[in-house]
């Protein structure tokens, strides 16, 4: 079996050599290298996924953990890692020239770092991959050459860098108290971090990693960046990158800070995210920023789900995260030509019936209409909140329900505009074929999930069982020698 570290190493290698092939006789190679490597990584990850039997660890450099860096591979990590090359392939920037090569390089770096975030089991290594993802995304945001993009990228960089400083302080605090960085060894030292200092460290780490996850206090960059960047980049950041950042926060919560206070902190931040995001989305008058604000609200729901204890929380969280990954990426792709003012979309359904149909499908799933997967993800969250049953959880439930109502208001407003009779001149914008193809593929994935809800449910359950099993994580990682399967 091929080694899983290739999933990180190969995209990095491809990114390094990509700019060398943007001119001359080997230009075709440059255009091919990115998609080929990503497809290869998808195959490697899928082979692991389909033959997966039980979690294992990889000791990088052959140094037995906790001395070296370890990758930990369980179903949850594999699932999220698999999503990275797949979605990146779907949203691949296919353009040419020196700037096109740079954009492809940055996209490959982003893919490598996000895969690393899914697999890595080392606190500082997570920070490094997170920073790599951040720097690559600043470049992609600024990369469309608009003046607004430069300011948006600068503000994003500043907010993110502030978060990184706070996160680095958190890592320093953890290292001060424990003297190790390996998540498995940190999990064995649970009681050393179960004090106010530990909670402070968790808050710092959550703020640090929360910037990309669009967590409540550090998400001021979201609407501007999604408004100013190209829509495919917005889809990549809102759909994919935010989920991997969420995964990191969840791993840290489960392994290092399994306390009620930390969960409550996540719950409160999630509630604030839902309320603030959905209210702002309601006020937005253009599609791109509306989707941006709405993704803050949706990620709030994801945080609320993950704050629930035990397997139920993990199932609900993973379901909500994956659903949002598919739906929000697709909506941002559709917002390519339709990203402007919502008023301008009057009658757009008459010029692109398929696009409008897809939009309705995704919007209804986002709202949670019963046969669609969005319903099940919201159902799991609400059910989990009702089971947990403290006042704070009921508040969370109220927030999720209110958020859904507001969501319904603004999404239906868009849908009625799409199907309204055309206003005459100017003609409503038409969807491009490539965007429709990408969105259509996401739509097929969504419908397939709706049909196969039963096996999907079982997979999620199995995933959650091993996901909360922190004892297995510790044993697997700490027993890992240089040998790997």
């Amino acid at each position, binding site marked *: 079996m091929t080694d899983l570290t290739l999933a990180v190493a190969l995209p990095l290698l491809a990114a390094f050599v990509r700019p060398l092939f943007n001119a001359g006789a080997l230009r075709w190679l440059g255009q091919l290298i990115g998609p080929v490597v990503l497809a290869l990584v998808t195959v490697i990850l899928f082979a692991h996924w389909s033959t997966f039997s039980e979690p294992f660890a990889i000791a990088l450099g052959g140094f037995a953990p906790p001395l070296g860096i370890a990758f930990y591979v369980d179903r949850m990590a594999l699932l999220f890692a698999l999503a990275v090359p797949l979605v990146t392939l779907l949203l691949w920037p296919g353009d040419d020239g020196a700037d096109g090569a740079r954009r492809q390089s940055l996209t490959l770096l982003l893919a490598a770092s996000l895969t690393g975030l899914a697999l890595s089991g080392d606190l500082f290594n997570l920070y490094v991959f997170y920073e790599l993802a951040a720097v690559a995304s600043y470049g992609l945001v600024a990369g469309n050459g608009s*003046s607004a993009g*430069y300011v948006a990228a600068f503000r994003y960089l500043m907010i993110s*860098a502030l978060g990184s400083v706070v996160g680095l302080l958190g*890592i320093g605090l953890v*290292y001060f108290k424990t003297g190790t*960085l390996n998540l498995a060894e940190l999990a064995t030292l649970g009681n050393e971090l179960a004090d106010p200092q530990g909670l402070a460290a968790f808050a710092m780490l959550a703020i640090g990693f929360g910037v990309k996850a669009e967590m409540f206090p550090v998400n001021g960059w979201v609407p501007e960046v999604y408004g100013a960047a190209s829509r495919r980049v917005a889809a990549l950041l809102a759909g994919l990158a935010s989920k991997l950042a969420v995964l990191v926060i969840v791993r840290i919560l489960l392994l290092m800070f399994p306390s009620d206070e930390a969960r409550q902190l996540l719950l409160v931040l999630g509630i604030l995210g839902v309320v603030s995001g959905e209210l702002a989305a309601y006020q937005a008058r253009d599609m791109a920023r509306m989707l941006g604000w709405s993704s803050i609200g949706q990620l709030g729901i994801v945080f609320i789900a993950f704050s629930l204890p035990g397997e139920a929380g993990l199932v609900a969280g993973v379901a909500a995260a994956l659903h949002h990954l598919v739906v929000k990426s697709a909506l941002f792709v559709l917002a390519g030509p339709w990203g402007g003012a919502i008023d301008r979309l009057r009658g757009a359904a008459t010029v692109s019936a398929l696009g409008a149909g897809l939009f309705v499908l995704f919007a209804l799933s986002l709202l949670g209409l019963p046969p669609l997967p969005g319903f099940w993800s919201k159902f799991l969250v609400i059910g989990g909140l009702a089971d947990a049953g403290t006042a704070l959880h009921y508040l969370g439930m109220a927030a999720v329900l209110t958020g859904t109502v507001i969501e319904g208001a603004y999404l239906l407003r868009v849908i009625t505009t799409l199907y309204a009779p055309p206003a005459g001149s100017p003609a409503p914008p038409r969807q491009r074929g490539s965007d429709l193809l990408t969105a259509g593929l996401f739509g097929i994935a969504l419908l397939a999930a709706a049909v196969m809800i039963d096996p999907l449910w079982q997979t999620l359950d199995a995933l959650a069982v091993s996901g909360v099993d922190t004892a297995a994580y510790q044993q697997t990682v700490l027993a890992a020698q240089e040998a790997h399967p």
Partner: protein
Amino acid sequence: MTTQIGLVFFIAAIGLCVIGIGGIVLSRNLFRMVLALAIAEAGANLLLVLAGYRWDAVAPILSAGQMPAPMVDPVPQAMVLTAIVIGVGVQALALTLVVRVKQRYGTLDMQLARERMNAEIDATADVTPPRSQERPRGERPLPAPAGGAHD
């Protein structure tokens, strides 16, 4: 005695961090924000390197294959090395963005640049901003206000 000296170091690290964060939040000048970021990162790096310090210990370099004396923890030093380089990369990228913002919008003032950015996003999206109809559209910079946006 020892804890007092430790406290001095902690105050230095956290002071740098807080000064940097304050600089980013309070200053309107883009270039000063980059400088403030550098200060904040220095504070975080200092805290990180303090995490490995031991009293009466030497640098972690083997001489003739032996440990001459107790050595400080090498891991935070390696982490700080990494963090510094990451910081350099981020700051360099921030500076390239500052150069471009100054050229396109003709200002280094964060608030002005942000207003113009929002106006530009509104204009591309074809949304009329709710309140101020008189906001500038497009990329043409306005003359700087009397407050002295140009440093």
